[in-house]
């Protein structure tokens, strides 16, 4: 397993780049593991990585139905931030952001984490106050946040429409440490990192059943045979309901479509991540030059990974309204991911009614930025059989108890979160 460095790159360059081996192995499944993680996406890979890295559990398998990293971690708008309102969320996402900040050196894989700043625009005094409540909450919890006025926003993002807008921009809430990361690289880097610590990443291995002995889990049936494990973690956001149902569990989760778009690549015009406060639109420019952007959910349950026309109209209109100069650029591609939407917009990282079975899902919009934090907390929860303080609120029971963590106040309507 070769270490990545500029020196290695040069020496490989002199011999035609022929010396690189596989980034991660391609093992056959063993009959049994200490922990099985179902799902080779960002969260599953991160969970396995941190099980090995921080919990010392290396006899771990990640079972992926197809190829790793091609679900939501490979189809998002790459934004990383921790600008949440409630402490239950902002402390968790801050932990995640801190892990992001050291991830490249930790993994020896450049995931191109770029802390270019995330600006949420506000368009009215009441929206400013709501953002201030959030920003102040972040600051009280030790997270960076700045409230910008209109001129400060103009200085940072001059291409916004300050003159002819239907919903004029009054200012913005800035988190400088927020930014973007190269989404595919995160999956690959985590896979390589977990593999180096001994984790088996098994692709083309679909879980078809969860075997129980009474009230506890004993293993999983797969398309490559039965695999035993006393602990099984589900990390298949988008399809959490389907996998949980294999263990007879019904969840407060619905699956919805979230779309993303990329424009052709142009020389740098936008240095930050900017979100429109008068609608659903967010945008950043990738290192390759493409403008990567997205909007809200399509608003109805879906497992389709296919882009739709109404959302393209909706999102792109808001984009042009926010940044009129985009009008003459062209949009290249549109795609969609399947989001687990919970009934309060906050995820699940918790135990289930089945002993030894854990669930990590319900990521709503927050999945990508949560990847390292989610893996770290899930690994802790699995290893210790109890949640860490960071994910203590992210239970299934909170809905029965009335302890929702509803940042938007949208209520039990998943498609509105």
């Amino acid at each position, binding site marked *: 397993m070769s270490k990545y460095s500029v020196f290695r790159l040069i020496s490989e360059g002199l011999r035609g780049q022929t010396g690189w081996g596989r980034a991660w192995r391609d093992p056959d499944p063993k009959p049994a593991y200490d922990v099985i993680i179902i799902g080779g996406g960002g969260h599953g890979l991160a969970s396995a990585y941190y099980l090995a890295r921080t919990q010392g559990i290396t006899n771990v398998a990640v079972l992926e139905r197809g190829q790793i990293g091609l679900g939501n971690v490979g189809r998002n708008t790459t934004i990383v931030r921790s600008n949440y309102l409630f402490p239950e969320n902002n402390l968790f996402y801050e932990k995640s952001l801190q892990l992001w900040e050291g991830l490249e050196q930790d993994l020896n894989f450049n995931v191109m984490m770029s802390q270019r700043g995330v600006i949420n625009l506000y368009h009215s005094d009441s929206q400013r106050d709501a953002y201030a409540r959030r920003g102040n909450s972040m600051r009280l919890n030790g997270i960076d946040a700045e409230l910008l006025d209109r001129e400060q926003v103009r200085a940072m993002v001059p291409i916004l429409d300050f003159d002819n807008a239907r919903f004029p921009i009054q200012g913005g809430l800035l988190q400088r440490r927020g930014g973007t990361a190269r989404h595919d690289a995160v999956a690959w880097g985590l896979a390589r990192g977990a593999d180096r610590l001994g984790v088996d990443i098994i692709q083309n291995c679909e879980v078809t059943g969860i075997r129980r002995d009474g009230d506890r889990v004993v293993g999983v049936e797969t398309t490559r045979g039965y695999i035993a494990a006393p602990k099984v973690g589900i990390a298949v956001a988008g399809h959490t309901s389907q996998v949980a149902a294999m263990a007879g569990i019904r*969840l*407060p*989760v*619905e699956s919805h479509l979230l779309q993303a778009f990329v424009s052709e690549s142009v020389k740098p015009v936008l240095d930050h991540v900017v979100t429109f406060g008068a609608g659903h639109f967010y945008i950043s420019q990738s290192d390759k030059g493409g403008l990567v952007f997205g909007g809200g959910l399509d*608003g*109805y*349950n879906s497992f*389709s990974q296919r882009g739709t026309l109404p959302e393209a109209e909706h999102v792109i209109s808001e984009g042009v309204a926010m940044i009129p100069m985009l009008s003459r650029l062209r949009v290249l591609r549109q795609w969609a991911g399947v989001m687990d939407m919970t*009934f309060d917009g906050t995820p699940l990282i918790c135990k289930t009614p089945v002993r030894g079975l854990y669930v990590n899902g319900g990521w709503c919009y927050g999945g990508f930025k949560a990847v390292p934090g989610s893996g770290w907390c899930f690994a802790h929860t699995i290893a210790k059989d109890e949640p860490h303080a960071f994910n203590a609120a992210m239970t299934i029971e909170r809905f029965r108890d009335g302890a929702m963590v509803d940042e938007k106040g949208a209520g*039990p309507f998943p498609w509105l979160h």
Partner: protein
Amino acid sequence: MLRINCPFCGIRDEAEFKFGGDASVKRPPADAGAEAFYLYAYERDNPKGWYVEWWHHVAGCRQWLKVVRHTVTHDIAQVAKAGDAVSVPQS
């Protein structure tokens, strides 16, 4: 773009409608207790396949319609009036 065949107005674009969630859950009677209301409000089958859901023809005849839609293909098998029974295709 979904096109929904409103039993009153005919086939119309998604833009005229608002989604209203799972139509297979039924509001419990007032005295059904907390658990029944929890299940009603929060737990879902979330099927990957045929799904019965509410759509409100809000920019049309303002009727709440029951739509049988496939959550992978988005095909619509049936659109019924609120009080009518629907049949869910097997597959």
